[in-house]
């Protein structure tokens, strides 16, 4: 609806009156014990580790940066084509390409430590022990304010089903990570492709997660009608973008209703300030921007500005005046 794609004229210079209002807005959030300057973060896999977008603007304006999922060993990922555009969305099957945790620490984390931005490290693995080992390597590193556990990876020890599809393996991964990182906030990232997302959410929190990230992509497929070939080399891929926003809002609202005290990083098709407010009202504490960065590398920066203005104009001054605020219809 509101997926404006034209370059908008920059907002008119802020008048003194406006300035007063803007400064009355406090965008800070408490995300599982860590204070972030604002709720705008990046969705894992959609912002790399920050340096590419830092060419466009200073990424330290963001509340936090969630990096692309890191595995124990380097991974080259899947063959191409790795993406296909779909109505208001896209499919991707990257296969977790990443340099491995050691090279990531040496190069990407080192770069990030020179920037003034809180880092949440997304970690992935094929087995419980994979996750544990990656977590162990992150212990005590400067700049890292949290870990996001990507539970939507195929579990090679369990018929390749993704961890987040069942309560037990998801909980097991979280327990292993928690043992290695007793003091860091841990966010379990869930897939919407389950019969009951609140059951998985509960299991992950019971296993020691500080909070939850939702949603990961939902499984999809596209076929070229002419050739009959799947559009992705991997046949299936993850659907993201505005198309899935209603699914994300529903999942965040369901989980927030079931677990109102658990901090949530909400994501899925968020693109405009209205979308940010929508998912915060559904129950998100922080908001991660994924696919929208592909259409506009500046979108995360813009959303920080837009959110402050949106709130100022309406007289809101703190994020918790909005978080979880859904009102029943009369």
């Amino acid at each position: 609806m509101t997926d404006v794609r034209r370059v908008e004229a920059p907002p008119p210079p802020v008048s003194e009156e406006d300035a007063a209002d803007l400064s009355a807005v406090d965008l800070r959030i408490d995300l599982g014990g860590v204070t972030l300057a604002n709720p705008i973060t990046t969705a894992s896999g959609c912002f790399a580790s920050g340096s590419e977008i830092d060419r466009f603007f200073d990424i330290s304006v963001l509340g936090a940066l969630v990096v692309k999922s890191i595995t124990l060993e380097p991974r080259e990922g899947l063959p191409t084509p790795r993406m296909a555009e779909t109505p208001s969305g896209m499919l991707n099957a990257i296969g977790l390409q990443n340099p491995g945790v050691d090279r990531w620490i040496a190069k990407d984390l080192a770069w990030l430590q020179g920037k003034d931005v809180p880092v949440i490290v997304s970690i992935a693995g094929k087995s419980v022990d994979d996750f544990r080992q990656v977590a162990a390597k992150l212990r005590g590193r400067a700049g890292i304010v949290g870990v996001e556990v990507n539970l939507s990876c195929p579990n090679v020890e369990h018929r390749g089903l993704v961890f987040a599809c069942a309560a037990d393996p998801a909980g097991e991964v979280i327990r292993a990570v928690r043992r290695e990182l007793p003091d860091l906030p841990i966010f379990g990232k869930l897939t919407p492709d389950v019969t009951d997302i609140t059951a998985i959410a509960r299991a992950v929190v019971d296993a020691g997660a500080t909070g939850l990230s939702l949603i990961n992509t939902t499984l999809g497929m596209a076929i070229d009608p002419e050739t009959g070939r799947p559009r992705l080399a991997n046949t299936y891929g993850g659907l993201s973008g505005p198309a899935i926003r209603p699914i994300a809002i529903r999942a965040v609202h369901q989980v927030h209703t079931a677990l109102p005290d658990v901090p949530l990083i909400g994501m899925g098709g968020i693109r405009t300030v209205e979308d940010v407010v929508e998912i915060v009202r559904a129950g998100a504490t922080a908001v991660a921007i994924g696919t929208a960065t592909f259409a506009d590398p500046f979108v995360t920066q813009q959303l920080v500005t837009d959110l402050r203005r949106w709130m100022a104009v309406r007289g809101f001054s703190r994020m918790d005046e909005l978080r979880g605020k859904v009102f029943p219809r009369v």
Partner: protein
Amino acid sequence: MKPTLHNRKTMVLGRPNGDTPVRAACEIIARRREGAYWTVSLSAPDIAERAHPGQFVNVAVSGPGTLLRRPFSISRVSRQGPAAGTVDFVFDAHGPGTGWLADRTAHDVLDVVGPLGNPFPLPRQKVSCLLVGGGYGVAPLFFLAEELRREGLRVDMIVGAATHERIFNAIEAKRITASVTFTTDDGSFGEEGRVTDVLEQVAKDCGTGVVYACGPMPMLRAVAEQCQELELPSQIATEEHMACGVGVCWTCVIPTRTKDGSVRMKRSCIDGPVFNGARIAWENSRWEVGGPLVTGADQPIEEPPPRPTDDELWGNA
């Protein structure tokens, strides 16, 4: 939050220094049909200032449900003169995004991110350059040819396409080169056949020292593999589906071989789109060379002349 807007009047977002890409609202100054293609000239001074041959722009397109930008190679920039500050690209209207673009007219405004990607490296030695282009891939080679000639290098060209209509701007090709050879699949213009059918002979006749190529991926594979057999260094502008164009999504990868022989998936939008042809691991790619394209490739090469090494030619590129 520091403002990153450095030029309010023309609505440009980005860092003020000159080696990073920007996002700009660009007015269409002119558009024209050239054979089977469309050429668009944009008023984009910030992009024009920063652009080098081989780089591309990423253009927002509209239409129901369209989300992602569309990448197009920069085919020309003007930094001086009456058209100063313009950036051109050439495109083939075949899908919804390019179809929408073909419906734009002068004075419409496009939302453009660029310049993106690594440019063609220029040779550090005085060599004769052969530019091999297929379809709209010829257009960015004109931009390259200009720079090479400014460096005082000889430029020859092979221009191929399926049909005469799809040969991009034959007149310009003739104007800017020492020699140009045309090929069409159906023989409707120039030689009948593919660019690789004439490459060896042209390279020999022109004393080619390096090859640059841009065009469809199967053609690029054939050219790169032929160059390797001929021991000709090559620089190849690749084309892979891109979701972001700025290096953050890892959808656009091209398999390349490192010096130790292992295959690494490199992002063509930020580590490319130009790659050293000898380093692309084509056998790990999805691109197949069509049958007729490889004929002649198995003939032994006589008297191989001494060639510069990659390092000697390109430095680190």
